């Protein structure tokens, strides 16, 4: 990064950060920078919208390059481009309420993505089955025991529904999810907060300049 650009962009970034932060902490009625903060946020929204368009154009360019060079798998790229352009034109011209657009979404996009999630469920079950066959360790046994307990406590029972055993399993499942899982989640949240504070301070103090490169 050149010296001149560094001297220009660093004050701009630091000033924008402090403005948004103070606008968030202070009341808008007594904050003279409230309007300026909202302006900066709207600019951020615009930039994000531009980033989405850039991502779409990049996707188009990558697949177009594969087609033009006839690289392996180029027919798939051709299909992607075909449906991409079709959906884009239909959505822009007719809107998202157009029946064809809704049909493409309901019968193509949604089932495909839902199938991927279903495959994930099968893969997780398969991994659990193989776990004790390949890694005969205490941690593996504990992992499988906890998974079985949570599944039994979450799902319905075929028989013995409402029995004392089911009650005990449900209590155990709740104890695990409310204590261990929630405790782990709190730790994750606290860690994220500390990391966000540290990163924010570094950026606000110009110690970290992600916009430099």
């Amino acid at each position, binding site marked *: 990064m050149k010296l001149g650009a560094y001297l220009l962009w660093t004050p701009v970034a630091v000033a924008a950060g402090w403005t948004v932060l103070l606008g968030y902490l202070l009341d808008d009625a007594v904050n003279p920078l409230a309007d300026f903060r909202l302006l900066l946020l709207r600019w951020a929204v615009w930039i994000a919208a531009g980033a989405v368009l850039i991502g779409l154009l990049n996707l188009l360019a990558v697949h177009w390059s594969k087609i033009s060079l006839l690289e392996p798998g180029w027919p798939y790229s051709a299909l992607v481009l075909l449906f991409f352009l079709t959906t884009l034109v239909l959505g822009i011209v007719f809107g998202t309420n157009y029946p064809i657009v809704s049909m493409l979404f309901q019968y193509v996009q949604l089932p495909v993505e*839902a199938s991927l999630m279903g495959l994930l469920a099968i893969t997780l079950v398969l991994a659990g089955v193989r776990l004790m066959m390949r890694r005969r360790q205490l941690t593996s046994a504990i992992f499988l025991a906890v998974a079985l307990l949570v599944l039994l406590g979450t799902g319905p029972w075929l028989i013995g529904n409402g029995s004392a055993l089911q009650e005990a399993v449900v209590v155990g499942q709740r104890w695990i999810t409310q204590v261990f899982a929630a405790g782990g989640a709190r730790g994750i949240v606290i860690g994220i907060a500390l990391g966000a504070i540290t990163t924010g301070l570094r950026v606000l103090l110009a110690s970290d300049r992600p916009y430099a490169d």
Partner: protein
Amino acid sequence: MDEIRCPMCSTLNPSEADVCRQCGARLKPVLGIPTGGKTGPLEAGDLPPVPDWLNRIRSDLPGEEGEAPASEGPDWLGRMREAATPGDEGPPAGEVPEWLKEDAPAPDEPAPSAPAPRTAPPAPAGKPAAASSTAEPPSPSLTPIEPGTSKPNETSMAGETPEWLSRIRDREAKARQRPGQEPEEDWLARFRDEAIPSAAQAKPDKKEARPEPPGVSPKPPPKEAGPAELRPMARPPAPVPSRAPEPIPAALQPPIPETEAPSQDLPKVPALILDSGGTATPGAEDIDLESIQLPEWMSDLKGGGPEEAAGERSRRDLAPATIPAWLEAMRPIDTFRSVVEIQPEEEQSVEAAGPLAGLRGVLLAEPVVAMPRAPGMDMGRVDVTDRHYAQAELLQKMLEEEAHEAPVAPGQRRRLPLLRWVVGAAVLLAVAIPAVLGATWFPVPSPEQWPPELVGFRSVMGRIPTDRASLLVFDYEPGYAGEMEAVLGPVVDDLMTRGIPLATLATRPAGRILAERILARYSSLHGFAAGEGFLHLGYLPGGATAAQAFLAAPRQAWESVGGAPSEGDVWVSPSLASIQTASDFGAVFLFSAGAESARTWVEQAGPLLDSTPLLAVVSAGVEPILRPYYDSQAPPLDAIASGLPMALAYEGANGRQADALSRWNPYGSGMLAAEALLAGGTLYGLAGWLTRRRPA
């Protein structure tokens, strides 16, 4: 002090030595200086006088004998200074010797232009510096060279010693007889004996050498000044000027005897060259070989004599020399042994070409350089260790393996991933069969078994005002639609049942379509019309920043991205007309399947919503992340709902069974299959571990 340095090896030798005791080189020149036909070592008095400038240079040279700083001069220098008192230098004022009077030019005659050369010519090579600086007589430049006089020896005639010179000599003699004083060095005594009279007779300086005008007495020399030839020795050493040597004027040249040097040629000695018969070449007969004094080392080279015969006998008796063991080990054995056998001289070949053509016995380079040499017997002898043998065997095996053609390994039969297929088929069948058959194998949970969060959720739903729109944030991908729609469906149904106007906002590109999909399904049940009962605000890009911007000023944020063109100006709708900030909404519902985005919305919206409730409907995977926000004392999250059991309970509470119930049996069946597979795999693994451990 009485030592002279060998010009060849720089060894100090006594002054009377003729040859060097170290290398045998001659220390005193035999020939080349006319000394009246005398041969042999030169005596100090035989040497020609050295000019004054040469004396000064020699005295100034560092390391020369006689050099000493003026401040701390040695005894010899002090004595010389004593001898050079002002009263002793030169004749007394007004007293000019007769010889000087005779040779002095007339007052009207111009002074001879014979400037003394300041730069000394190079000293003759090989001449001992110490000897020349001490034993040589004063320079001829100091001798009174009178115009028209070519024999300066006439100036030192006996019997003409002046009185002042006699006083000097008498004082010197007395000084020598002082008790406790070390005897003077021979060379210094000789030097003084010869230099002082000459200096006394000669003028101490060129300036003084000029004849004074008549009537002017000679100016006495300065007090500190000694004789002219001794002044440079008393001065501190001065750098030798590096000027080119100037020729000595003819008047200052040493006299050359007419008998030996009729011409300007330097004296020389004819070379002694013996012909093949052993006789001297012409011109060498008149050289008296016996009179030539050869150094000892040359005398030793002379053959013959009984001593040589005795030496031959002793050499035969000598034991052969032995080489130390360490040197023997380093000696290359046979490798560099020369194959050239030295032959008798008569049998040696005559060189035919080159600068040595015609010579016999010349070492031939061809056999050594060009011709191949036979290897020694031990050339191939190598110390081989076991490690070398092992490495050699390994290398041999590798080479043999390379030589053989590797057999083509039979292709491994592709095994059917049976376990994968079994697991996949079991789960699919467990989910599909109840869904296809419409089976109700699993009982619906009774209200006592409903999740405890349901009560709180419905309690918050009951506080939502109906005069303002509630915001529904769709923040999940289509892949999660199966789970999310089952959970949020009863919530939307309940909202429409309560007649709460809705406004949807998508934070994912596909969120808008997902929102339309849900609202279209339940709006027909409740008679909600698009634009009146519910509005779509569209897609809001920007993640956390967009959430912050929208919660702070929904209308400006929406307008900044263009809003939803198909919906027109949604903010003129009665349900949204009063909305200026996020807290103006009746409630904010977060439908999220992403932990990061759900956390962002909860953190961003919590402080800005004031009393507006925030309710989260999330997937089962996100629920543990949002649980801490919900369980806190001042929760930013007022209610949370997740999972199919919660949805089924909510439908039960709404009194309308919908998607949750239809998915309850496939869900239960799939869960049961997964539990069975996990348990079976765990037992199989434990059994295999036990069976393999038992034989061991």
